[in-house]
């Protein structure tokens, strides 16, 4: 399985937000999408999830093209959004059951995995709870548990560390590392690079809807003329200056 994004141009209206994006993630690889607010990270993710129709270009997982076989494509994609979105009428247990049904998982094996994940995120005694009773952090944990339960080839993770306690952040990083080691692909957007670099090896810098550079953090530092011991926040200052000079 390989995720290929070829010449993707798209956005919300006729005016493209992202322009001619090309990305490739192979099994066991991870990619972090970084950039300032409005750079096009979330728009790229929405295209990969099939929530927006590309104006140009193609997104595929192996030979399965998203726009041609959306359900088959989505069966290989799990998503953790920045803001947790749950079904108000389903309990935690039912969210997991819905994930099992949607991704055609073997119920017995899925429950074994679910119990491990629930214990890890301290949700194992809250199976009967409705989302209204969860805090924001707990809701985010439900999203994480559901995504890792789906056991898909590609994990799309949008700003995952917001609202999580340090223990949950550590567990999530650990899960991402294990997923990559097991040959899964991970695409993540984040501003919290200190946490992200523990799991993600390569990064793509998005600026004004285009990819400026792809590489390791070391290569990105070099590209923007940052010294090895410069804090990474300096990258954002550089992007901000570029943004202003373009304007």
């Amino acid at each position, binding site marked *: 399985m390989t995720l290929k994004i070829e010449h993707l141009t798209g956005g919300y209206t006729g005016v493209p937000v992202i322009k001619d994006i090309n990305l490739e993630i192979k099994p066991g690889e991870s990619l972090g999408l970084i950039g300032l607010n409005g750079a096009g990270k979330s728009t790229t993710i929405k295209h990969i999830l099939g929530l927006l129709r590309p104006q140009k270009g193609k997104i595929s997982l192996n030979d399965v093209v998203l726009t041609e076989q959306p*359900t088959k494509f989505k069966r290989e994609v799990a*998503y953790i*959004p920045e803001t947790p979105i749950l079904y108000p*009428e*389903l309990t935690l247990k039912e969210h997991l059951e*819905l994930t099992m*049904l949607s991704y055609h998982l073997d*119920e017995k094996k899925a429950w074994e995995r679910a119990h491990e994940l629930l214990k890890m995120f301290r949700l194992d005694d809250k199976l*009967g709870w409705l989302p*209204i009773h969860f805090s924001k952090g707990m809701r985010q944990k439900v999203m994480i548990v559901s995504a890792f339960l789906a056991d898909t080839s590609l994990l799309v993770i949008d700003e995952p560390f917001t609202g999580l306690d340090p223990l949950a952040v550590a567990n999530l990083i650990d899960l991402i590392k294990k997923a990559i080691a097991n040959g899964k692909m991970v695409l993540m957007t984040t501003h919290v690079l200190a946490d992200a670099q523990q799991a993600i090896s390569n990064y793509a810098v998005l600026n004004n809807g285009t990819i400026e550079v792809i590489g390791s953090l070391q290569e990105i530092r070099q590209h923007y003329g940052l010294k090895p011991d410069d804090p990474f926040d300096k990258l954002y200052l550089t992007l901000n200056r570029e943004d202003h000079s373009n304007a």
Partner: protein
Amino acid sequence: MRELAKKRLSENLKQSVKYLTLVFNDFFILALIFLFGALMFWYAQAMKTMPSNLWFYRPLVGFILWVPLLAGHLVTLIKEADMQFLFTQDEQMDQYLKPMKHYSLVLPFILEILLAGIVFPFATIKAEINIFSYILLVATMLLIKVTELDIEKNNLYLGKKASFSIVSLGALLAALISAYYSYIGIVIGVLGILLVPNFQLTFGKRMDKTMLFDWRYAAESEKARKDRVYSIFSMFTDVAEKQVAIKRRKYLDFLLPKSIAKENPNLFLYRRSLLRNPEYLNLLVRMTVFAILVSWLVQDWRWALGLSCLVIFLTVYQLLPMATEFDRNFMYRVYPIERQNRGKDLVKVLTIGLFIQWLLISICWLIVLPINVSLFEAMAILLGFTLIVVATYLPNRVKKMNQKNFGIR
């Protein structure tokens, strides 16, 4: 703050007018005119025949005049964001709430005066309340409403809060007593006139100088009030602003399959939505109760059958939004859920719901209507009608809605 209140009131009025125009459409107005005409005709006829001055007439007048007081809680239009952005304005909130209180009085005053006009012949002729006492009774009711709103306003500040049900019961008691003993009505009226401004002065001062505004309570109360208003509008039209509070209803879990082996995601979601979303389950219950009540009132199987068929059709019609309800959920669109057959899944779920509705109506018919062969025939016809609606109308409409939303055929 007064300007902000006026701006919000004007926006609120615009929104209310928008929904009222939708609710009181031509057909509804026509139906209301007929209903009102029929009711007034019955009232005029009854006035000719009913005996005069029975013991319960006066308390009945008091009760009827108390009913409009239930309408129109204090409109505050406080928003959640006010907790953040108006946090420092506690001392100005009294200025903000003044126009709000005046606005809140409009609806109950109109209803009270309208109802007082309708009840006037009965009160003065049959209950033999003299005109002066009656006017004073109505004035007392209006003053009680003002006092109720002042209590609600006082509750918006941190501190001990008066229970609205106790206040309302007190108002009912005052209404019953004033209607029964005209001279006490005069005393209550005079006391009201003296006490209400005094009440405002006493509590008004406390509000301004010593009390902190309870932002969270105010925001929650206003949200609850708006939800109640939207619930009324939503019985007639779609209300975009309405937020639904899901109820767990664990006691209904026996209606869900024990295993998910034979489920699919759409069936799974629709079943739980029907059982836990108050919009849908309450509608089903309300319509069933309505059908039973109407059947009991008409006491004739033909009318009961016709009206119950109408109720079943209206239930299906009002449950149609279920077809596309998950399309607004981001995760529903992200998950690999097939949408091709979801119309059939909804039909399966609603068939069970409507079958239960038919069963309940039929059982109640056996209790409230005269039992004969025709009644059993009516039950069979009602079942046949339900099945036809479920097999033809429902799938057709669901298909159209899915096509409109996603081009699903």
